[in-house]
């Protein structure tokens, strides 16, 4: 039977430095495992996302809004607000209204011909949604439009971030 002092002090003082270092190394290795699991999670999400499909939805009639005018609509889900902008007589573009920085609602500035986020002065190009200035690092998700007769139809999204 072990003496009581051996049960109370199970590690020799000379070995203690090894034990503390081994424990820290174990913690670091488990952290590394956590990082790996994080990467696997991203991989799983990206595989699941590839199967995502977008609804086909009529969002406006041609000529419904004036040149330089804006119409708000929801796409692809009922909580995903987007804006349709008529940039010229026969040109329409549509983007998600959620700023890619901190999700403030962007608006169209007809004077500057760009999309602006009022929260932190992030500006996006009306041509392709790319960042012109400010803290956002990612472009605005773009709604792909099609014309069917007199209707403008939203068919999918480009640069769609994860929810």
């Amino acid at each position, binding site marked *: 039977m072990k003496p009581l002092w051996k049960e109370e002090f199970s590690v020799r003082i000379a*070995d203690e430095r*090894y034990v503390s*270092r081994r424990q820290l190394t174990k913690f*670091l290795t488990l952290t590394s495992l956590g990082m790996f699991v994080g990467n696997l999670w*991203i991989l799983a*999400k990206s595989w699941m996302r590839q199967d995502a499909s977008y609804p086909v939805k009529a969002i406006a009639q041609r000529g419904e809004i004036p040149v330089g005018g804006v119409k708000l609509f929801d796409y692809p889900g009922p909580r995903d607000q987007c804006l349709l902008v008529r940039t010229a007589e026969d040109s329409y573009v549509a983007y998600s209204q959620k700023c890619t920085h901190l999700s403030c609602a962007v608006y169209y500035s007809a004077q500057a011909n760009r999309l602006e986020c009022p929260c932190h002065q992030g500006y996006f190009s009306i041509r392709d949604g790319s960042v012109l200035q400010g803290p956002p690092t*990612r472009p605005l998700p773009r709604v792909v439009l099609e014309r069917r007769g007199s209707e403008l139809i939203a068919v999918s999204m480009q640069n769609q971030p994860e929810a």
Partner: protein
Amino acid sequence: MGPSTAQQNRGLTAVEGAMALIVLLLMVQVWLLSATLDAFLAGHRDTAVPGAIVSGLLFLACGGLYRFVVRLERQAKREPDP
């Protein structure tokens, strides 16, 4: 008889070297995870596979270094008192 103090110190130096290497690998892994996540959130999905493979390799390297540390500890342990 257990190992001498010089042997103990040599073992500790090796353990500390392994720990420094693990910290370095971990920093690379943190960067890799943040870069993969950023690309994923931006809608680019082609970085997910190489990110996961490299992260797995880094984890295996960390695991190997941990086993090395455990082995060194076993070698350095003094024999129990009679």
